């Protein structure tokens, strides 16, 4: 029997403290409670600071815009696998993708929102790297991330991380940029070589069994596009009639969309289309066509012939446009179809991408 009067030796607080879960994402990070708050403070707020985001309310009130401008909105979800690839990551892609979608509308992108769907088990330092990458790209593009949301799904129900970004930009009311505006005689400018993002991601998946030093072209194009629009200004409207970024589906799909929207024919010259040798080799081996490979830092411009030289010069002056070329023109023949003049003097149809790109057997 122990003596009930014997003083108990208290060792300190016995109540078990909850783990802080600061190393990997758990369901509680999406609960809206303490863990969510900590995550926002330690990861998101560290990298994405601006007065609008710091208001901390359920939504954000944006400053009024000049009545001579209209508002352009776009949204894009990013589910890329793997989340890191040569030349970028899902965060950079999520910012650049939406910035570019706003920019090709002829608008100046100003604000982004970001929605994160995280899978249980994602290391927090991976998330932090991705958020810091988003911050860098947003800074380069000159846009502010003004609202955000985080949800967590159970392990196995996501692929590490999905990011949705929505963007807001402003465009002068007088500027008419649309896929419907391509006119017969217009020239087609491509801002640089094709297929680098598509091939870089294929490589990063690691199932090709070979590697090259190729990097994804993912980049914010809004400054390049602003320069092109300035150079394109003329007495009546802008020399640039249409802009579009050839992402999934590649150049072939983008040109087909424009040909259909504007009810015109398009002819491109194989000899003028810039493509890196590495991209050609990988595509030849796998039976892919670079015309269908994804790009994340390229833009197609459809331009009045009189303004083409000025616009091309402005694009080439930008760091992302030094290899820009005039690759073809808009014609009245074969409306809604895109034809390619091959280097050996024949002509063939260039169709939209049908389904997923599949490697050929031999």
């Amino acid at each position, binding site marked *: 029997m122990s003596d009930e009067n014997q003083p108990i030796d208290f060792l300190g607080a016995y109540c078990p403290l909850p783990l802080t879960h600061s190393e990997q994402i758990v369901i509680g990070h999406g609960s809206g409670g303490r863990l969510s708050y900590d995550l926002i403070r330690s990861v998101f707020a560290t990298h994405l600071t601006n007065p609008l985001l710091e208001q901390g309310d359920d939504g954000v009130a944006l400053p009024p815009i000049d009545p001579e401008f209209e508002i352009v909105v776009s949204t894009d979800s990013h589910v890329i696998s793997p989340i890191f690839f040569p030349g970028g990551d899902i965060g950079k892609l999520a910012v650049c993708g939406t910035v570019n979608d706003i920019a090709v509308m002829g608008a100046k992108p100003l604000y982004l929102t970001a929605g994160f769907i995280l899978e249980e088990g994602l290391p927090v330092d991976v998330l932090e790297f991705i958020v810091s990458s988003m911050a860098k790209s947003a800074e380069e593009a000159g846009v502010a991330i003004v609202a955000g949301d985080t949800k967590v799904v159970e392990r196995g129900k996501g692929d590490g991380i999905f990011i949705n970004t929505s963007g807001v930009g402003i465009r002068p009311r007088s500027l008419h940029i649309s896929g419907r505006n391509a006119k017969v005689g217009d020239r087609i400018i491509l801002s640089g070589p094709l297929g680098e993002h598509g091939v870089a991601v294929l490589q990063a998946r690691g199932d090709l069994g070979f590697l090259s030093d190729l990097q994804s072209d993912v980049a914010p194009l809004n400054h390049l596009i602003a320069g092109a629009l300035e150079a394109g200004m003329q007495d009546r409207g802008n020399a640039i009639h249409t802009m579009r970024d050839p992402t999934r589906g590649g150049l072939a799909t983008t040109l087909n969309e424009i040909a259909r929207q504007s009810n015109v024919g398009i002819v491109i010259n194989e000899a003028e289309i810039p493509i890196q040798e590495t991209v050609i080799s990988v595509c*030849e081996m796998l039976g892919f066509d670079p015309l269908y490979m994804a790009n994340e830092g390229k833009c197609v411009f459809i331009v009045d012939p009189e303004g083409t030289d000025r616009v091309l010069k402005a694009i080439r002056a930008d760091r992302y446009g030094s290899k820009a070329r005039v690759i073809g023109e808009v014609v009245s023949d074969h409306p809604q179809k895109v034809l390619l003049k091959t280097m*050996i003097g024949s002509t*063939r*149809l260039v169709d939209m991408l049908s389904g997923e790109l599949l490697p050929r057997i031999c």
Partner: protein
Amino acid sequence: MDTKLRYGFRDTKLVQAKVRQIQKLVTRPWAIMEICGGQTHSIKKFGLDQLLPPEIEFIHGPGCPVCVTSLELIDKALQIAALPNVIFTSYGDMLRVPGSKGDLFSVKANGGDVRVVYSPLDSLKIAQENPRKEVVFFAIGFETTAPANAMSVLQAEAMGINNFSLLVSHVCVPPAMRAILNSPSNRVQGFLAAGHVCTVMGYWEYIPIAEEYRVPIVVTGFEPLDILEGVYRVVRQLEGGTHEVENAYSRLVTYEGNQAAQKVIQQVFEVCDRKWRGIGTIPKSGWKLRDVYLKFDAEHRFDTHSIETQESPLCIAGLVLQGLKKPYECSAFGTLCTPQNPLGATMVSSEGACAAYYLYSRNLESPKMNHV
């Protein structure tokens, strides 16, 4: 790999010079069959048929393994791939080939574990990493893919990997050429033999065919200049009345071929009758696993119950594969049958004749196609 393709075997001046040589040579119409789907793809992609004189007609041969794999076997693949404990691996372009009901993509969408691989050795790795699963590789192809498939079986045996098997649908070129030449409706007067097949097999097998059927055969590559050189040599023989086997792909092909590869094929496979989709059974035209390797045969391992197959009644792929009809002569071409919604296998693979016509030239020839 030579990365200067664009400036070597696709050189504009050399191509045009070769076309002029052919123009000078031709005095009357000739029907030439390119055996291989890869060559069909090149002809349409580079528009070579537009450059050549109208006397030269290409008849597109049955050399697309995706297209000729029989419907029964596709249906078996769909059954096996849907089994709960199976990882079904395949070259990418098989995923869209329609079976009687659905394709491998739809099996995947319904929860089947279907994965695209680039080589059977990748599947073997998957089998190693998933010892509790059955890993099946869809071993289709001509002589070109056979060595790697045979090697995967030898490696599986050497490494004691027992959860790996092949669903085999190997086909061989020479018996198909004989079947075409034996057909009463045959129109083929000369052949471009498939360069890649010959890198493995050499061209000794073609000498008796050229002799027996008095038909010129030229081993031909896949770049524009390769194909034009093949056409030039076939036409030269046809105009001169000779019927020999020539090698126009000597930078890769030798008379005897790759002996080591042939030895591995012989060790693992034996000749069998094989059903070709759209054509029917051609005697001794395929390879199956030898009895000693029966345990690696997916047909043996899985009980695929009897399957009733159902081809689309509209599809004329059989006539296209035999060179009796052009794809655009089909009533469904480009309307009911497209690469997004194929009725037959020739519309699926980019090497299939129908898909090549659809992708590269559907508004460039034949008045009908303007409506597509």
